[in-house]
């Protein structure tokens, strides 16, 4: 087979340039992946083409005793399949052909007479590991950058180049199933413990050790599963049990919204008994089926959105801003404490200031507990634990902040208080130290006003709970400089968060969109829709929790406060329902007060028993599930179109990313705008127009359901917000 089935990129280099063969000794070949057109090598068409040629040549060379496959550097092996390719392929046959081609290539490698060793390091995901699995031994560097695994299910497909078979055969069905379903990338030690790799060494010794093993000069025994392979992997009863448990787990986690995990389970369970000749067909069929699903395309688009977000932390020429070393966090409430802890855990020294010794004590206790859990789970070592403890200092008041190069305030949402705090910090700190506000409802410009050097004032909006929520909205004020935006985005990325840059508008992006969504939910509830039904339809839609449960989580008071400021900012289309006033009067604030829509008494929250007393039936309870979903989701969608039209975020990808990471908007939809585009923008325009005319909608929130101008325009035009 000499035709390459993957699409050939335009900048493909000349044949023979992507894979190099070195012969340090007569019987040893070292195959180096070094494509000139890629800063990080991937399995694209040119590389596959050249690897094929190399492998065929090596097969013919009978003088060879050992072959090592390695990258151009110890921390650069291969990054697996070309994901851009996966996103762009629409023909299942292309997927099928590519799988067969790679199976054939890897089978050739597995069949080489010489002893083959994969010498890997850095990221070794997907196809890179599948190639390695076809070798006789795998040696990896123990560097921190080494991450090994099969993440395909996270992109809506399955390991299709032999991984779904070779991994279970190597490490057993249960471990392989776990690795493939979670898509986890393991560090070298863990990978060795699981039996994925055979040997760990230092980066400097990688090629030498791999060569010695390939030449048989150094023993490298493989871990065997022994009797387990008989009693577990080849025991139909055990496999049935494992399969049932795995399917149940996937059901619970995804509510059946993603097809890939089920395909993966089937393949992995069948691997021990499958005939080698069927491997390629079964994997190729699954990939062909999954690769063209909208779920796969949506997940790929989120992946790329996230990759794009990573570029925000670098300057226009790729230059990295100075790393933040010493941060001042003012306000030790839930948000401030969370931000301080995450900063300290990611290597930033933090001075956390508050006037309340109790709040400081609570913040430190939370930090220490979090770290203790990580230490007991061996996620961090004792010295890292000690260092992270020592990086967070509790300070009674904003004193001694002069040496900090970054400050973030998380004090009460009162303009004057925030300005006072930042003003005091500005006096102490250097002129180029960043002053960030974690406000959710105040204007960054208003806060920045009259502060010296307003170009270093910026909004950095974290979501609650800070350690878990992956999104950070970075709010750029009028005066904020590009350098400050970049440095703040770099900090967010260092904290493991995805930054989205927003303009300084009321509610920024996520809260602005949640406003109409939650308000519609409240109105439906007040109008008589069963609360459990409301939450269920949104769970079925793919949200991580129902709107009423979300209100409890956020706090009814906080949500009310946000709604009021949206109303002030945008007028009548944001007028909130007054249906929850009595909640507020009774200090019934949700999870934090123990009672909201649900009773929170530890364990699973139960629905409150007196909710019907808040309802004034208006006939909406007779609406169908789809209608309920549309009211909530399309109100939000329409607002998203407006925000996009106003340039609140730079592009539709950023908006989609923010909805997925900021509100958990179903990843299989690929984000809010993508959901609408897939459903058809003209359908949505029609639905909005119909909703606007609904009897109980008329007379309230004028404009909420009137299709945004850019929506009507896009519906009439390309049907998409994206320029091709």
């Amino acid at each position, binding site marked *: 087979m000499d035709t390459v089935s993957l699409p050939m990129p335009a900048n493909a280099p000349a044949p023979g340039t992507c894979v190099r063969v070195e012969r340090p000794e007569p019987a040893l070949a070292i195959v180096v992946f070094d494509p000139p057109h890629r800063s990080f090598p991937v399995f694209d068409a040119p590389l596959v083409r050249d690897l094929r040629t190399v492998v065929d040549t090596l097969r013919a060379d009978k003088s060879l005793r050992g072959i090592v496959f390695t990258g151009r550097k110890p921390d650069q092996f291969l990054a697996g399949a070309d994901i851009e390719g996966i996103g762009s392929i629409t023909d299942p046959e292309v997927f099928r052909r590519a799988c067969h081609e790679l199976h054939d290539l890897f089978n050739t490698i597995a069949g080489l007479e010489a002893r083959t060793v994969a010498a890997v390091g850095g990221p070794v995901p997907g196809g890179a590991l599948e190639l390695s699995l076809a070798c006789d031994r795998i040696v990896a560097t123990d560097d921190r950058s080494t991450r090994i695994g099969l993440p395909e299910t996270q992109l809506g497909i399955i390991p299709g180049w032999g991984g779904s078979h070779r991994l279970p055969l190597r490490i057993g069905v249960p471990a392989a199933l776990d690795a493939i379903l979670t898509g986890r990338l393991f560090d070298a030690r863990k990978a060795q413990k699981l039996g994925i790799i055979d040997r760990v060494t230092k980066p400097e010794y990688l090629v030498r050790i791999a060569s010695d093993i390939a030449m048989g000069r150094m023993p490298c025994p493989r871990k065997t599963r022994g009797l387990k392979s008989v009693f577990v992997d080849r025991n139909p009863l055990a496999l049935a049990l494992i399969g049932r448990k795995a399917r149940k787990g996937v059901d619970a986690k995804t509510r059946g919204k993603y097809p890939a995990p089920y395909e993966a389970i089937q393949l992995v369970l069948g691997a021990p008994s499958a005939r080698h000749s069927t491997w390629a067909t079964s994997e190729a069929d699954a990939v062909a089926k999954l690769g063209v699903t909208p779920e796969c395309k949506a997940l790929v688009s989120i992946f790329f959105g996230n990759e794009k977000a990573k570029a925000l932390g670098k300057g226009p020429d790729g230059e990295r801003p100075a790393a933040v070393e*010493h941060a001042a966090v003012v306000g030790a409430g839930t948000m401030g404490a969370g931000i301080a802890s995450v900063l300290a855990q990611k290597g930033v*020294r933090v*001075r956390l200031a508050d006037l309340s*010794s*109790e709040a*400081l*004590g*609570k913040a*430190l*206790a939370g930090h*220490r507990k979090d770290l203790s859990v990580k230490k007991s789970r061996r996620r961090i070592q004792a010295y890292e634990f*000690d*260092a992270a*403890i*020592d990086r967070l*200092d*509790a*300070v*009674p008041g904003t*004193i*001694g*902040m*002069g*040496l900090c190069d970054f400050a973030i305030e998380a004090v009460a949402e009162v303009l004057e208080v925030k300005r006072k705090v930042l003003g005091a910090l500005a006096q102490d700190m250097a002129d180029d130290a960043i002053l960030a506000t974690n406000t959710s409802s105040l204007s960054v410009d208003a806060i920045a006003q009259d502060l010296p050097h307003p170009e270093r004032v910026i909004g950095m909006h974290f979501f609650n709970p800070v350690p878990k929520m992956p999104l950070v909205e970075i709010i750029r004020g009028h005066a904020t400089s590009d350098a400050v935006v970049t440095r703040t985005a770099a900090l967010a990325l260092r904290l493991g968060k995805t930054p989205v840059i927003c303009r300084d508008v009321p509610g920024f992006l996520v809260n602005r969109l949640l406003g109409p969504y939650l308000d519609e939910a409240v109105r439906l509830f007040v109008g008589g829709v069963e609360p459990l039904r409301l939450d269920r339809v949104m769970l079925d839609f793919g949200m991580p929790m129902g709107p009423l449960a979300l209100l409890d989580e956020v706090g009814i008071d906080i949500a009310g406060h946000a709604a009021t400021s949206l109303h002030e900012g945008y007028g009548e289309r944001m007028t909130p329902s007054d249906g929850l006033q009595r909640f507020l009067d009774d200090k019934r604030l949700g999870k934090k007060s123990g009672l909201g829509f649900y009773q929170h008494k530890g364990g699973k929250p139960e629905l409150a028993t007196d909710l019907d007393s808040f309802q004034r039936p208006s006939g909406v309870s007779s609406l169908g599930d789809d209608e309920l979903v549309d009211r909530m989701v399309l109100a939000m969608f329409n607002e998203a179109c407006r925000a996009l039209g106003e340039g609140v975020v730079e592009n539709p990808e950023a908006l989609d990313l923010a909805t997925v990471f900021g509100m958990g908007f179903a990843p299989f939809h690929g984000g809010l705008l993508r959901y609408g585009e897939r459903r058809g923008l003209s359908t949505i325009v029609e639905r909005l127009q119909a909703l606007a005319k609904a009897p109980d909608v008329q007379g309230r929130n004028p404009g909420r359901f009137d299709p945004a101008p850019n929506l009507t325009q896009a519906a009439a035009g390309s049907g998409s917000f994206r320029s091709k």
Partner: protein
Amino acid sequence: MNPRNDGPPIVLAAGLRTPWARAGGAFQREDAGHLGARIARELLARTGLDPKYLNEVIAGCVGPPHDEANVARVMAIRAGVPDHVPARTVARNCASGIEAVTSAVASIQAGQGDLYLAIGVEVMSQYPLIYGPKMTQLFARLMSARSLGQRLGALASFRPSFLKPRVSLMEGLMDPTCGLLMGQTAEVIARDFSVTREEADQYATESHQRARRARDAGRFAREILPIHPLGRDGAALEHDDSIRDNQSVGALAKMRPYFEKPDGVVTVGNACGITDGASALIVTTQDRAEALGLKPLARIRSFAWAGLDPRRMGLGPVYATAKALDAAGCTLADIGAIELNEAFAVQVIACKRAFESRSFAQRELGRDQAVGELDLAKTNKNGGAIALGHPVGATGTRLLLTAAHELEVGDHELTLATLCIGGGQGGAVVLERMAR
């Protein structure tokens, strides 16, 4: 007359300490490396001193944790001091904190540098229990056993008595050269100077009352950083926690002698407690302090170390003070306020008598006249170790910090910090007010 006046004036530029906490209490889950680093970080942050300019970090600690060898380096790194700044741990028993400061002074005088961070730290709660030699030998035999038989043989030699631990705290308080516990040395000088139980209890009560008044008047607030201790959630420890607000002579009189039963005079009540704490000072030249924008607390006028009979170690302050006063070119009467560490009430009283005794001066100090009157009204005005506690390695830095603050509070020209040192030594530092 004082050769040290030739060099550049050396100052204590700033200082801070943790509250002193009773051992086994608030700081029982701390360790020296964390507690000392915390106070060092805060001092650096509050002074705005970029630690990259430091010439060295010097820490005094009597019982450094076994897993934090050269605890000064551990604290320096944890305090954010950059790698290029070296660090050393120094020890002179109870004066280790002052030793850290005088080591810095000596380094500056030797022209090695001009900016030092001195730390005194002690977490006595964490002093370990250790296995005796028999158990240690058993472990050694087990480790080297090659066969099952050897292993069983080693195990068979085990006796339950092997498990009796050696208490490193108690053994540390024993002077191995004279076989006396520190408390027993206090009994020796109580007998030498006829100090009575009543006098000792009276002195101890006064120490608590002075400490309480100082705390309530906020006089410690300037030197204490509230600490949220490791292993204890919730509120911070804001004050020294062994001050007894209602201490009375009557209550103390009921206690039994601890070291010499039945006729001794030293009780747990009129001795200092076992305590945890850390304190840090910035030692630099006056010029450098000004260049860094720091407002120094005090100038170091002179210091002295002296040795004496280990069985009478409590009298160390008399020997050292005499030398330090000579070096400073002044007399005890010139000193406005004195911090004389209260290891034991009887020891302070014995010191007073020795200071004022002409025959003692002639016999022991080779001087014609008594050193001078030790006015208890100006000695330990904010209470002392009997009320506050005595975290051995940290006490010295605390004495200097308090003595430095007293220059300002009492509008004095000179103050003195002095202490006795287990093993038979004394240390003394004369501080001078900064020119206004």
